[in-house]
């Protein structure tokens, strides 16, 4: 049984790692969810005892380890909120860059950074730049 569960933990972890390495950001999110799933399975499996649920009235015989369950619950909750946050980040990236491909997004970022740098070299210092941008924004806001 230990062997079987270990194999499953490893498979889930490896699949998650594989997805995290993809270009598609949504797949990366799924990969992270899978990795956290494997971690939770690991925590649950690390319980020292296995048996009936740890709820009174408790019968004679083995009771499942309640401590790991509490930890797994915490991990589940955090994992799910992180997934929600990541999804929102992916959406945000799509809005700002029009893509959910990490390589495309990166290329755009680099281009932008280079443009900024070349502007800095030729023009004023960055602080004034920023102010000018802000003024522009302020003007646009009323619309």
């Amino acid at each position: 049984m230990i062997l079987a569960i270990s194999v499953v933990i490893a498979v889930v972890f490896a699949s998650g790692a594989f997805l995290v390495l993809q270009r598609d950001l949504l797949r990366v999110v799924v990969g992270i969810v899978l990795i956290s799933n494997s971690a939770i399975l690991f925590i649950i499996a690390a319980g020292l005892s296995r048996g009936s649920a740890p709820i009174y009235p408790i019968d004679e015989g083995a009771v499942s380890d309640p401590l790991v369950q509490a930890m797994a619950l915490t991990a589940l909750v955090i994992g799910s909120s992180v997934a929600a946050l990541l999804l929102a980040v992916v959406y945000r990236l799509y809005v700002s860059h029009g893509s959910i491909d990490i390589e495309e997004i990166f290329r755009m970022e680099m281009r932008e950074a280079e443009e900024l740098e070349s502007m800095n070299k030729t023009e004023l210092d960055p602080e004034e730049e920023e102010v000018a941008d802000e003024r522009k924004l302020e003007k646009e806001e009323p619309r």
Partner: protein
Amino acid sequence: MSAPINNTTSILTQTVAKLLLLPTFVAAFAILVKGYAQPGDGFSAGVVASLGVLLQYLVLGRREAERLVTVRNAPTIAGAGLLLSLSVAVVPLFLGDPVLTHYPRPGEDVVYLGTLELITPVLFDLGIFFLVFGFAVGAIGAFARTISEQEEYAGPGTEQLEDDT
């Protein structure tokens, strides 16, 4: 999840969805207060209740769902929940006990209301319930709002789908 489904759902589905909201809350409440005796706690109760709200979004559309007081105030509810749990944790400090001491202390008698035990962990769980409910409803609402805003961008032909039923 969004308005267009509105027109495709039948009156029957809509009525059932509306009717189901209250029982969902009752079920969530039961999960919450019986958490100390049976599986379930503030967290699962919060998710169950938010799934009830999600059903409203799916079947009735955003406009209808946002009429619910709970939906409009989701972040406030979450904040209130966090505050409640925090205060349950902090209040014992003022009574000279360590943080997060629960009352009644071990060995003391519990006040019962029917079969419901009146103990501070339930209050703590209630805070978690509000927080999780606020979180889930707030996240769902944020996604739904963004979706329908995008559809409004899409141009004419979609407006009538946004109409209230």
